[in-house]
Protein backbone atom coordinates (compact mmCIF):
# COMPACT_ATOMS: atom_id res chain seq x y z
CA UNK A 1 0.00 0.00 0.00
CA UNK A 2 1.29 3.46 -0.93
CA UNK A 3 0.19 6.36 1.26
CA UNK A 4 0.34 9.95 0.01
CA UNK A 5 1.01 12.38 2.85
CA UNK A 6 1.31 16.14 2.79
CA UNK A 7 1.09 19.06 5.18
CA UNK A 8 3.22 21.65 6.94
CA UNK A 9 5.75 21.38 9.76
CA UNK A 10 3.32 19.31 11.86
CA UNK A 11 3.40 16.54 9.29
CA UNK A 12 7.07 17.05 8.47
CA UNK A 13 7.95 16.37 12.10
CA UNK A 14 9.40 19.73 13.13
CA UNK A 15 11.24 19.87 16.46
CA UNK A 16 11.60 16.10 16.62
CA UNK A 17 15.12 14.86 17.10
CA UNK A 18 14.81 12.50 14.13
CA UNK A 19 11.84 13.76 12.12
CA UNK A 20 11.92 11.19 9.37
CA UNK A 21 11.90 8.32 11.86
CA UNK A 22 9.69 9.73 14.59
CA UNK A 23 6.94 11.49 12.69
CA UNK A 24 3.44 10.03 12.60
CA UNK A 25 3.55 9.22 8.90
CA UNK A 26 6.51 6.91 9.37
CA UNK A 27 5.06 5.27 12.48
CA UNK A 28 1.73 4.80 10.72
CA UNK A 29 3.26 3.33 7.58
CA UNK A 30 5.42 0.96 9.62
CA UNK A 31 2.30 -0.23 11.47
CA UNK A 32 0.41 -0.81 8.22
CA UNK A 33 3.34 -2.18 6.28
CA UNK A 34 2.80 0.66 3.81
CA UNK A 35 5.15 2.79 1.74
CA UNK A 36 5.43 6.36 3.10
CA UNK A 37 5.38 9.22 0.58
CA UNK A 38 5.60 12.31 2.77
CA UNK A 39 5.78 15.51 0.71
CA UNK A 40 5.27 17.92 3.60
CA UNK A 41 7.41 20.98 4.21
CA UNK A 42 7.79 23.43 7.07
CA UNK A 43 5.90 26.71 6.50
CA UNK A 44 3.92 25.09 3.68
CA UNK A 45 0.76 26.89 2.62
CA UNK A 46 -2.59 25.39 1.66
CA UNK A 47 -1.82 26.65 -1.85
CA UNK A 48 1.28 24.46 -1.95
CA UNK A 49 -0.51 21.48 -0.47
CA UNK A 50 -3.30 21.79 -3.05
CA UNK A 51 -0.83 22.38 -5.89
CA UNK A 52 1.15 19.30 -4.90
CA UNK A 53 -1.79 16.93 -5.04
CA UNK A 54 -3.45 18.53 -8.07
CA UNK A 55 -0.45 19.26 -10.27
CA UNK A 56 2.83 17.74 -9.05
CA UNK A 57 1.70 14.20 -8.20
CA UNK A 58 -0.71 11.73 -9.72
CA UNK A 59 -2.92 10.79 -6.78
CA UNK A 60 -4.18 7.76 -8.70
CA UNK A 61 -0.75 6.20 -8.08
CA UNK A 62 -1.52 5.98 -4.35
CA UNK A 63 -3.84 3.80 -2.28
CA UNK A 64 -4.62 6.29 0.46
CA UNK A 65 -4.08 10.00 1.11
CA UNK A 66 -3.58 11.92 4.33
CA UNK A 67 -3.54 15.66 3.76
CA UNK A 68 -3.04 18.06 6.63
CA UNK A 69 -4.09 21.62 5.92
CA UNK A 70 -2.52 24.58 7.64
CA UNK A 71 -3.00 28.25 8.50
CA UNK A 72 -4.99 29.85 5.67
CA UNK A 73 -3.09 33.14 5.65
CA UNK A 74 -0.04 31.43 4.21
CA UNK A 75 0.49 31.53 0.48
CA UNK A 76 3.26 31.06 -2.07
CA UNK A 77 4.86 32.59 -5.15
CA UNK A 78 7.32 31.60 -7.85
CA UNK A 79 10.81 32.69 -6.86
CA UNK A 80 12.60 33.44 -10.12
CA UNK A 81 15.98 33.68 -8.42
CA UNK A 82 15.76 30.14 -7.05
CA UNK A 83 13.57 28.81 -9.85
CA UNK A 84 11.07 27.27 -7.43
CA UNK A 85 7.97 28.04 -5.43
CA UNK A 86 8.51 29.75 -2.11
CA UNK A 87 6.08 29.79 0.80
CA UNK A 88 5.00 32.96 2.55
CA UNK A 89 4.02 32.95 6.19
CA UNK A 90 1.95 35.82 7.55
CA UNK A 91 4.03 35.90 10.69
CA UNK A 92 7.31 35.72 8.89
CA UNK A 93 7.42 37.51 5.56
CA UNK A 94 10.81 38.97 6.40
CA UNK A 95 13.56 36.84 4.89
CA UNK A 96 12.10 36.43 1.40
CA UNK A 97 12.39 38.30 -1.86
CA UNK A 98 9.94 41.18 -2.23
CA UNK A 99 9.48 41.17 1.52
CA UNK A 100 8.09 44.69 1.51
CA UNK A 101 5.33 43.74 -0.87
CA UNK A 102 4.39 40.75 1.28
CA UNK A 103 4.32 42.86 4.42
CA UNK A 104 1.94 45.24 2.66
CA UNK A 105 -0.10 42.29 1.43
CA UNK A 106 -0.83 41.19 4.98
CA UNK A 107 -1.24 44.73 6.22
CA UNK A 108 -3.42 46.11 3.41
CA UNK A 109 -4.84 43.36 1.21
CA UNK A 110 -5.25 40.07 3.06
CA UNK A 111 -8.51 39.56 4.97
CA UNK A 112 -9.42 36.66 7.21
CA UNK A 113 -12.54 36.02 5.13
CA UNK A 114 -10.31 35.55 2.10
CA UNK A 115 -8.22 33.00 3.97
CA UNK A 116 -11.21 31.12 5.39
CA UNK A 117 -12.94 31.02 1.98
CA UNK A 118 -9.85 29.74 0.20
CA UNK A 119 -9.20 27.19 2.95
CA UNK A 120 -12.63 25.66 2.33
CA UNK A 121 -12.16 25.96 -1.44
CA UNK A 122 -8.90 24.02 -1.31
CA UNK A 123 -10.42 21.48 1.12
CA UNK A 124 -13.29 20.85 -1.31
CA UNK A 125 -10.87 20.67 -4.22
CA UNK A 126 -8.67 18.08 -2.48
CA UNK A 127 -11.69 16.02 -1.45
CA UNK A 128 -13.23 15.98 -4.92
CA UNK A 129 -9.89 15.23 -6.58
CA UNK A 130 -9.32 12.19 -4.35
CA UNK A 131 -12.92 11.08 -4.82
CA UNK A 132 -12.65 11.41 -8.59
CA UNK A 133 -9.56 9.21 -8.49
CA UNK A 134 -11.05 6.70 -6.04
CA UNK A 135 -8.38 7.36 -3.43
CA UNK A 136 -9.64 7.37 0.18
CA UNK A 137 -8.68 10.57 1.97
CA UNK A 138 -8.26 11.71 5.54
CA UNK A 139 -8.33 15.49 5.51
CA UNK A 140 -6.68 16.88 8.63
CA UNK A 141 -5.85 20.32 9.93
CA UNK A 142 -3.44 21.78 12.41
CA UNK A 143 -5.86 24.59 13.20
CA UNK A 144 -8.05 24.64 16.25
CA UNK A 145 -11.78 25.16 15.97
CA UNK A 146 -12.86 28.60 17.17
CA UNK A 147 -10.26 30.25 19.34
CA UNK A 148 -6.83 29.54 17.99
CA UNK A 149 -3.46 29.95 19.60
CA UNK A 150 -0.79 31.77 17.66
CA UNK A 151 2.70 30.70 18.56
CA UNK A 152 5.35 33.35 18.64
CA UNK A 153 8.69 31.64 18.80
CA UNK A 154 10.46 32.80 15.68
CA UNK A 155 12.81 35.79 15.83
CA UNK A 156 11.30 37.11 12.61
CA UNK A 157 7.83 37.45 14.14
CA UNK A 158 8.09 41.15 14.32
CA UNK A 159 6.67 44.24 12.73
CA UNK A 160 4.67 42.51 10.04
CA UNK A 161 2.99 40.17 12.47
CA UNK A 162 2.26 42.99 14.88
CA UNK A 163 0.58 44.86 12.04
CA UNK A 164 -1.38 41.79 10.99
CA UNK A 165 -2.49 41.14 14.56
CA UNK A 166 -3.52 44.76 14.97
CA UNK A 167 -5.45 44.77 11.71
CA UNK A 168 -7.53 41.77 12.71
CA UNK A 169 -7.81 42.72 16.35
CA UNK A 170 -5.91 39.63 17.46
CA UNK A 171 -4.41 39.67 20.87
CA UNK A 172 -0.95 38.25 20.76
CA UNK A 173 -1.42 34.56 21.34
CA UNK A 174 -4.91 33.94 20.02
CA UNK A 175 -7.53 34.75 17.41
CA UNK A 176 -10.77 33.18 16.21
CA UNK A 177 -11.67 31.45 12.97
CA UNK A 178 -14.89 30.36 11.32
CA UNK A 179 -13.88 26.72 10.88
CA UNK A 180 -16.33 23.97 11.67
CA UNK A 181 -15.32 20.57 13.02
CA UNK A 182 -17.23 18.96 10.15
CA UNK A 183 -14.95 20.61 7.60
CA UNK A 184 -12.19 18.13 8.44
CA UNK A 185 -11.83 14.44 9.29
CA UNK A 186 -9.02 14.82 11.78
CA UNK A 187 -8.03 17.65 14.14
CA UNK A 188 -4.34 17.36 14.84
CA UNK A 189 -4.20 20.17 17.34
CA UNK A 190 -6.37 18.38 19.87
CA UNK A 191 -5.48 18.48 23.55
CA UNK A 192 -5.15 14.71 23.57
CA UNK A 193 -2.07 14.94 21.38
CA UNK A 194 0.90 16.21 23.41
CA UNK A 195 2.99 18.99 21.93
CA UNK A 196 6.20 20.79 22.61
CA UNK A 197 5.88 24.01 24.57
CA UNK A 198 3.49 26.69 23.30
CA UNK A 199 1.70 24.07 21.18
CA UNK A 200 4.32 24.71 18.55
CA UNK A 201 4.37 21.15 17.17
CA UNK A 202 3.50 17.59 18.16
CA UNK A 203 6.13 16.02 20.38
CA UNK A 204 7.31 12.43 20.07
CA UNK A 205 4.38 11.11 22.11
CA UNK A 206 1.97 13.28 20.11
CA UNK A 207 3.16 11.74 16.85
CA UNK A 208 2.71 8.22 18.27
CA UNK A 209 -0.88 8.97 19.35
CA UNK A 210 -1.76 10.63 16.05
CA UNK A 211 -0.40 7.58 14.23
CA UNK A 212 -2.53 5.27 16.41
CA UNK A 213 -5.71 7.22 15.73
CA UNK A 214 -5.01 7.49 12.01
CA UNK A 215 -4.36 3.76 11.84
CA UNK A 216 -7.75 3.13 13.44
CA UNK A 217 -9.43 5.44 10.93
CA UNK A 218 -7.69 3.85 7.95
CA UNK A 219 -8.53 0.31 9.05
CA UNK A 220 -12.16 1.34 9.56
CA UNK A 221 -12.27 2.83 6.08
CA UNK A 222 -10.73 -0.28 4.56
CA UNK A 223 -13.22 -2.51 6.47
CA UNK A 224 -16.19 -0.54 5.24
Amino acid sequence: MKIYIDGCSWTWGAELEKPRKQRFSRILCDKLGAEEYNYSRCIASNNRIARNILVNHNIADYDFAIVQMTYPARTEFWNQEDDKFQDVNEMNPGPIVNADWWKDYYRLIYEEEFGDTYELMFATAIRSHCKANNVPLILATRRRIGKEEVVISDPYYSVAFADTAKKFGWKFGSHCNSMKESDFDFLMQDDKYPTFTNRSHLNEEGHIRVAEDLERMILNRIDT
Partner: protein
Amino acid sequence: MKIYFDGCSWTWGAELENREDRFSKLIADHYNAEECNYSECCSSNNRIVRRLLDTDISSYDKVFIQMTLPSRTEYYDGEVWKQVNLGVYAPKKSIFAGRDIRNVERRRFMKGKKMTDLFSIKSETGEETWGYSYNKDWKDYYRYVYTPELGETYEKMFANIIRSYCGSKLVLTTIGNIGINLDKSKYPRMPDGHPTKEAHRMIYEDIH
Protein backbone atom coordinates in the same frame (compact mmCIF):
# COMPACT_ATOMS: atom_id res chain seq x y z
CA MET B 1 -32.61 20.44 -17.56
CA LYS B 2 -30.16 23.03 -16.19
CA ILE B 3 -26.82 24.00 -17.62
CA TYR B 4 -24.12 25.76 -15.56
CA PHE B 5 -21.96 28.30 -17.38
CA ASP B 6 -19.12 30.37 -16.00
CA GLY B 7 -16.23 32.32 -17.44
CA CYS B 8 -15.12 35.87 -18.09
CA SER B 9 -16.38 38.49 -20.53
CA TRP B 10 -16.26 35.98 -23.38
CA THR B 11 -18.95 33.87 -21.77
CA TRP B 12 -20.79 36.91 -20.43
CA GLY B 13 -21.19 38.18 -23.99
CA ALA B 14 -19.30 41.43 -23.78
CA GLU B 15 -19.76 43.84 -26.69
CA LEU B 16 -22.84 41.99 -27.93
CA GLU B 17 -25.89 44.14 -28.47
CA ASN B 18 -28.15 41.41 -27.24
CA ARG B 19 -27.17 38.94 -24.51
CA GLU B 20 -29.54 36.42 -26.09
CA ASP B 21 -26.92 35.97 -28.82
CA ARG B 22 -24.22 34.65 -26.53
CA PHE B 23 -23.16 31.02 -26.96
CA SER B 24 -24.47 29.96 -23.55
CA LYS B 25 -28.02 30.89 -24.59
CA LEU B 26 -27.63 29.07 -27.89
CA ILE B 27 -26.40 25.94 -26.11
CA ALA B 28 -29.18 26.11 -23.52
CA ASP B 29 -31.77 26.53 -26.27
CA HIS B 30 -30.28 23.60 -28.16
CA TYR B 31 -30.86 21.33 -25.14
CA ASN B 32 -34.13 23.03 -24.23
CA ALA B 33 -32.46 23.74 -20.91
CA GLU B 34 -32.34 26.53 -18.36
CA GLU B 35 -29.31 28.78 -18.98
CA CYS B 36 -27.53 29.46 -15.67
CA ASN B 37 -24.75 31.81 -16.72
CA TYR B 38 -22.67 33.05 -13.77
CA SER B 39 -19.87 34.62 -15.81
CA GLU B 40 -18.49 38.06 -15.04
CA CYS B 41 -16.41 40.46 -17.07
CA CYS B 42 -12.80 40.65 -15.82
CA SER B 43 -13.25 37.39 -13.92
CA SER B 44 -10.23 35.45 -12.72
CA ASN B 45 -9.87 31.67 -12.70
CA ASN B 46 -9.81 32.01 -8.90
CA ARG B 47 -13.35 33.37 -8.88
CA ILE B 48 -14.59 30.78 -11.34
CA VAL B 49 -13.27 27.94 -9.16
CA ARG B 50 -14.36 29.56 -5.89
CA ARG B 51 -17.91 29.90 -7.19
CA LEU B 52 -18.01 26.42 -8.70
CA LEU B 53 -16.85 24.70 -5.51
CA ASP B 54 -19.50 26.54 -3.55
CA THR B 55 -22.16 25.06 -5.86
CA ASP B 56 -23.93 21.71 -5.62
CA ILE B 57 -23.06 20.65 -9.13
CA SER B 58 -25.32 17.58 -8.95
CA SER B 59 -28.26 19.90 -9.60
CA TYR B 60 -26.91 20.70 -13.07
CA ASP B 61 -26.97 18.40 -16.08
CA LYS B 62 -24.07 19.93 -17.95
CA VAL B 63 -21.26 22.32 -17.03
CA PHE B 64 -19.52 24.68 -19.44
CA ILE B 65 -16.55 26.42 -17.87
CA GLN B 66 -14.46 28.90 -19.80
CA MET B 67 -11.13 29.53 -18.13
CA THR B 68 -9.52 32.91 -18.55
CA LEU B 69 -6.11 34.55 -18.51
CA PRO B 70 -3.88 33.04 -15.83
CA SER B 71 -2.49 36.39 -14.71
CA ARG B 72 -5.79 37.51 -13.25
CA THR B 73 -6.44 37.12 -9.56
CA GLU B 74 -8.83 38.32 -6.89
CA TYR B 75 -9.01 39.55 -3.33
CA TYR B 76 -11.59 40.33 -0.71
CA ASP B 77 -11.59 43.96 0.35
CA GLY B 78 -13.52 43.47 3.57
CA GLU B 79 -16.89 43.95 1.88
CA VAL B 80 -16.82 42.47 -1.61
CA TRP B 81 -14.62 40.27 -3.78
CA LYS B 82 -12.62 42.14 -6.40
CA GLN B 83 -11.08 40.88 -9.60
CA VAL B 84 -7.62 42.06 -10.58
CA ASN B 85 -7.07 42.11 -14.30
CA LEU B 86 -4.17 43.10 -16.51
CA GLY B 87 -5.19 45.43 -19.28
CA VAL B 88 -4.89 43.21 -22.31
CA TYR B 89 -8.34 44.13 -23.49
CA ALA B 90 -8.63 47.60 -22.06
CA PRO B 91 -11.36 49.39 -23.95
CA LYS B 92 -9.80 51.59 -26.62
CA LYS B 93 -6.55 51.64 -24.68
CA SER B 94 -5.04 48.37 -25.73
CA ILE B 95 -2.89 47.74 -28.74
CA PHE B 96 -3.46 44.01 -28.29
CA ALA B 97 -7.14 43.73 -29.16
CA GLY B 98 -7.77 40.99 -31.65
CA ARG B 99 -4.39 39.33 -31.27
CA ASP B 100 -3.57 36.08 -29.53
CA ILE B 101 -3.98 37.03 -25.90
CA ARG B 102 -1.86 34.27 -24.44
CA ASN B 103 1.11 35.01 -26.63
CA VAL B 104 0.90 38.74 -26.07
CA GLU B 105 0.84 38.22 -22.32
CA ARG B 106 3.58 35.63 -22.27
CA ARG B 107 5.83 37.52 -24.68
CA ARG B 108 5.70 40.68 -22.65
CA PHE B 109 6.70 38.85 -19.52
CA MET B 110 9.49 37.06 -21.31
CA LYS B 111 10.90 40.35 -22.51
CA GLY B 112 10.96 41.55 -18.96
CA LYS B 113 8.32 44.13 -19.71
CA LYS B 114 5.92 43.29 -16.99
CA MET B 115 2.43 44.45 -17.71
CA THR B 116 2.14 47.04 -15.04
CA ASP B 117 1.10 49.92 -17.20
CA LEU B 118 -2.56 49.22 -17.26
CA PHE B 119 -4.82 46.99 -15.29
CA SER B 120 -8.23 47.05 -13.74
CA ILE B 121 -9.89 46.10 -10.51
CA LYS B 122 -13.52 45.16 -10.72
CA SER B 123 -15.84 44.55 -7.81
CA GLU B 124 -18.70 42.07 -7.86
CA THR B 125 -21.08 45.03 -7.78
CA GLY B 126 -19.93 45.78 -11.31
CA GLU B 127 -17.88 48.84 -10.51
CA GLU B 128 -14.68 48.82 -12.51
CA THR B 129 -11.65 51.01 -12.19
CA TRP B 130 -8.96 51.25 -14.83
CA GLY B 131 -5.76 52.89 -13.88
CA TYR B 132 -2.06 53.27 -14.25
CA SER B 133 -0.87 53.84 -10.74
CA TYR B 134 -3.88 54.34 -8.50
CA ASN B 135 -3.26 51.11 -6.67
CA LYS B 136 0.37 50.74 -5.86
CA ASP B 137 0.05 47.34 -4.23
CA TRP B 138 -1.45 45.58 -7.23
CA LYS B 139 0.80 47.40 -9.63
CA ASP B 140 3.75 46.17 -7.61
CA TYR B 141 2.28 42.67 -7.52
CA TYR B 142 2.60 42.45 -11.31
CA ARG B 143 5.92 44.20 -11.26
CA TYR B 144 7.65 42.19 -8.55
CA VAL B 145 5.67 39.11 -7.56
CA TYR B 146 3.63 37.69 -10.43
CA THR B 147 5.39 35.49 -12.96
CA PRO B 148 4.08 33.36 -15.83
CA GLU B 149 5.30 30.28 -13.96
CA LEU B 150 2.98 31.12 -11.07
CA GLY B 151 0.05 31.88 -13.34
CA GLU B 152 0.42 28.87 -15.57
CA THR B 153 0.98 26.41 -12.71
CA TYR B 154 -2.13 27.67 -10.96
CA GLU B 155 -4.00 27.50 -14.25
CA LYS B 156 -3.20 23.76 -14.33
CA MET B 157 -4.26 23.41 -10.72
CA PHE B 158 -7.57 25.18 -11.31
CA ALA B 159 -8.22 23.11 -14.46
CA ASN B 160 -7.66 19.89 -12.52
CA ILE B 161 -9.94 21.11 -9.73
CA ILE B 162 -12.68 21.86 -12.26
CA ARG B 163 -12.25 18.49 -14.00
CA SER B 164 -12.34 16.49 -10.76
CA TYR B 165 -15.33 18.42 -9.43
CA CYS B 166 -17.47 18.24 -12.58
CA GLY B 167 -16.47 14.87 -14.02
CA SER B 168 -18.14 13.85 -17.26
CA LYS B 169 -20.60 16.77 -17.19
CA LEU B 170 -17.83 19.21 -18.05
CA VAL B 171 -16.91 20.99 -21.25
CA LEU B 172 -13.79 23.02 -20.52
CA THR B 173 -12.91 25.92 -22.80
CA THR B 174 -10.36 28.68 -22.42
CA ILE B 175 -8.80 31.86 -23.65
CA GLY B 176 -5.71 30.82 -21.71
CA ASN B 177 -3.79 27.59 -22.11
CA ILE B 178 -5.92 24.64 -20.94
CA GLY B 179 -9.14 23.44 -22.52
CA ILE B 180 -10.75 23.95 -25.92
CA ASN B 181 -9.16 27.15 -27.20
CA LEU B 182 -11.69 29.90 -27.97
CA ASP B 183 -8.98 32.42 -28.82
CA LYS B 184 -8.83 31.28 -32.43
CA SER B 185 -8.51 33.56 -35.40
CA LYS B 186 -11.45 31.87 -37.10
CA TYR B 187 -13.80 33.47 -34.61
CA PRO B 188 -14.52 37.07 -35.73
CA ARG B 189 -13.89 39.74 -33.09
CA MET B 190 -15.50 42.95 -31.96
CA PRO B 191 -13.33 46.11 -31.69
CA ASP B 192 -12.30 45.33 -28.12
CA GLY B 193 -11.49 41.74 -28.91
CA HIS B 194 -14.55 39.83 -27.79
CA PRO B 195 -16.38 37.37 -30.06
CA THR B 196 -18.96 38.81 -32.43
CA LYS B 197 -22.53 37.52 -32.67
CA GLU B 198 -21.38 35.30 -35.52
CA ALA B 199 -18.44 34.04 -33.45
CA HIS B 200 -20.75 33.12 -30.57
CA ARG B 201 -22.76 31.00 -32.97
CA MET B 202 -19.56 29.36 -34.25
CA ILE B 203 -18.44 28.66 -30.70
CA TYR B 204 -21.85 27.15 -29.94
CA GLU B 205 -21.54 24.90 -32.97
CA ASP B 206 -18.03 23.83 -31.96
CA ILE B 207 -18.65 22.97 -28.32
CA HIS B 208 -22.29 22.05 -27.75
